[in-house]
Each structure stands twice: as C-alpha cells, then as structure tokens.
C-alpha cells in the first residue's frame, strides 16, 4: 500500500486529511502493520478540546495498547462508530473506513509541523 499523497503525516504515525476546517485523523498503513490485529479502538468524546501531541484515542492490538495523538490542536467533532464495531477496519482500510476521529481545526498554521507523504515515507525508511 502506498502512502497517499494528499494527506499530512505525524512522525508518531497518524495521518490527517484536511477538508475546509475539518481534519480527519487515522493511523498510517505502516502503523497498522506494526500493530497488527487491532482488536479495540477507544474513541474520544465529542467536544473535547485537544492540543497537538495530546493522546486522544487508543488503538489496541492483541499485544499492546497504543496512544493515538492529535497531530494538531482542535475540538473533537466526530468519531468513527464503524471502527468501534469492527476494529479490524484499521488494519484493512487504514486511510479510508478505518479513520478514527475528526477535529475542528483551531490553528491551520500548525499543519506546517506535519510531514508530507514523501517525508513520511522517508521517516519510516521506505
């Protein structure tokens, strides 16, 4: 699976898709490959305000629980009930139906701290 070119990436392996002032966040294909067997996703509460780097969701595989960090600051304005019902979507469709939460972006300037697809691919050694 290639690294989609239209997304922003965090070095902690989250991706972010920006549509107007709403950011959709999930974890990269590389991250789901490292985790394997995602069996539980803990979603944040709608309305919660987070800063860049705050642990916001938890993805659990059989072997470990991993924090998912907010790549930028904002207010949680959506969560994906599908990954709650079927956590394996994070493995099978990490950039699509396996998305985890949405943020109403506070400060778009924060996006400049994230990586583009090429830089992220380099970061994971591809």
């Amino acid at each position, binding site marked *: 699976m290639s690294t989609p070119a239209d997304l922003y990436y965090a070095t902690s392996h989250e991706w972010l898709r920006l549509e107007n002032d709403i950011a959709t966040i999930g974890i990269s294909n590389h991250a789901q490959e*490292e985790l*394997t*067997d995602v*069996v*539980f996703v*803990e979603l944040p509460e709608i309305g919660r305000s987070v800063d860049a780097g705050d642990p916001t969701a*938890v993805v*659990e*595989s*059989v*072997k470990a*629980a991993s924090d998912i960090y907010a790549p930028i600051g904002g207010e949680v304005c959506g969560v994906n009930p599908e990954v709650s019902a079927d956590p394996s979507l994070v493995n099978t469709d990490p950039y699509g139906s396996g998305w985890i939460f949405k943020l109403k972006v506070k400060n778009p300037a924060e996006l400049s701290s994230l990586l583009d697809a090429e830089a992220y691919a380099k970061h994971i050694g591809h």
Partner: protein
Amino acid sequence: MELLRHSPLEASHLALGAKLTNFAGWQMPIQYTSIMDEHAAVRNAVGVFDISHMGQFIVSGSGACAWLDGMLTNSVASLAVGEGQYTLLLNERGGVIDDLILYRWLEDTYFLVVNASKIDEDFTWLSQHLAAGVLLRNESDAWAGLAVQGPLAASLYQKIYPHELLPPRNGIHALASGEIVCRTGYTGEDGFEIFIPVGHAASVWQAMLDGGAKPCALGARDTLRLEMGYPLNGNDLSPDRTPLEAGLGFFCDLTKNDFIGREVLLQQKSEGLSVRLTAIETIEKGPPPRAHYPVLASDGTQLGELSSGVLSPTLMAGIGMAYLPTAFSKIGTSLFVEVRGKKIAAKVVKKPFLTSHRSQSTTPTPL
C-alpha cells in the same frame, strides 16, 4: 551489561518476517504475521514455536530420584521410565522459584525443562542443595527446542519420523538421530516438544515448516496458554505465592516424605487459603485486560491486579487471572477490571477459559 542471547534459528525467523522482542534476555520472535492467525493455526491445525530459550538440566545417579523428591513438589518416585510430570521448585517459604517439567528419561536419569528466565537461578539453587551421589548438569546451551502444537501435530510427527515412536501424553522418547521428543506443551492442544542438539536445529525447524506447520511466536504462545489458564512464571507465579494459592495443588504431593516448602503448604492447607489465583472473564465489550490492571469488587473496592490478561482470540472476550481474596474467588462473582480509569464488568469463571478444553487435565509446560 548482559548481552542478549540469540536462538540458533534467528536467521530463519528474520527471513520469515518475524518481529523480534527481548524475552527473558533472549531475542525471540513475538509474532510472524499475526497473533490471531498463529493462534488459530494451533487451535485448528498445527503450529511450530521456537522454544530454544528454555533451559534443560540433566540429573543422574543412583540418588537422583530421592534427591529430586526433596527438591520438587510432585512425586518423582511415581514416574515410570519414559514418563514426565509438571512440577514446582519452591523456596523455604513455599513460594514458587520455578515451574518445570521433569521427565524420567532413563532408570536413574532425569531431564528437566525450565523457564528461560530462571535457568541461572534454578541451577544455583539446585547446586546449593545437591546431595552426594547425584550429578546435575546444565545443558541449556547444547539444546535448541521446538514446540509443535495442534490437532495435526501427531500426524506431522509420523510423516517426519515414520520409524519413531511418538510417546504417550507427558512421555519422553530419545530418537536415534539424537533429538529428545516429549509429548507435552503449553497450548492445551495435542502436540510435542522436540529438543535438538543445537547444530542441526535449523534442519528440523525446516522439516516442520515443510510439513505444513505454521511458524508461531511468543505472542500466540501467551494467548494460547492463558485460554487454558496455564500460569506464566514471573506473571502468575512468584516467590511470594505458593502453588496452593496458584491453584496448582494437584501437582504437590503433600503425602511424600519431605520437600522444600512442604511445611508451609501443609499449614496453608489446614488453615485455608486467604488468596487464590482467580480466572476472570470480561462480560461487556471493552478494551482487552492486561497484566497489572486493577481488579475491583462490585462496590468499587480494589481487590488486586491482573497477573496476566489478554483478549482471547477464540472467545473474543477479555480473560485474565488475579490473586484475589478467597471470598471473591468463587465462580460467578461479579467484579470489575479497571482500564484507564474505566470500569469494565467481569466475573469469576472456571479454568480453563476455553470450555471445549475443560475435559482435558491441565499439565502446562513452563514458557
């Protein structure tokens, strides 16, 4: 600084795409492709695990049986040649130093398989208590090991070794080619463990893969053993807990003359246990339980913490074990497991967790 030890099969693990982890000072595979898939292969077909990290001792001499009976909880004297048993090595307080499998290989020669994390401690302890006329050798560096587990394990064995006997349950058999085969395991499935002189470990491993066994690693080994309620030393067993508290009284022969820790066990037996290792299953959807998560009574009082916990791939429910006050260890008792501040409803269940395996006796091999 202690250097990480390496399995003789490490190159093969890396070629198979294994993720490696530090386990008990050994660099070992934690998973190849998926813990779920590896787990299912062992429950439904056959899997092969590298267990080269485990330790092997050989005890021999005319006094071996009597000496071992003074060191271990189970009845060594009751073993016929070719038989093995799960047993425990205790300290003077009745606490568990290690759990191991002892096989009576020859008339006066015993083969002991011990936990990787306890090889040095066990060997030191046994050496300090050695009796005249008994020879104790640590052969851990000489043997690689594979655990071949699953309903198809026996037919795989017959395919690879058509002229050799597969010993009966818990038995041991030395092959003409130098390997030692034991009909034991740590998964609850039929299968065998084969100990191989290090030099030709790779060829036996390859034969198992070619014969259709799926390579399986420590992650699946942990989910498989926990579904059976088998303890893992360091998690569920400790020098501060007795085997009676751990629910392993079946493997302690209190009628035999004497063994280290026996007085404490007798006293506990007469006074009753204040804590018991209790099997817990979550009854609502939630995050998987894991070791060290708090276990709470239904009124919210903390009773203890999980010694092991995992999402059972077979049951798709959270399962775990915890030392709890006896009053809370009764089957059906309502509890909570606390995960990141949230209370997940759970209850005490009977071991093993896997009901379809409840007819089998529980004879775990240490990890």
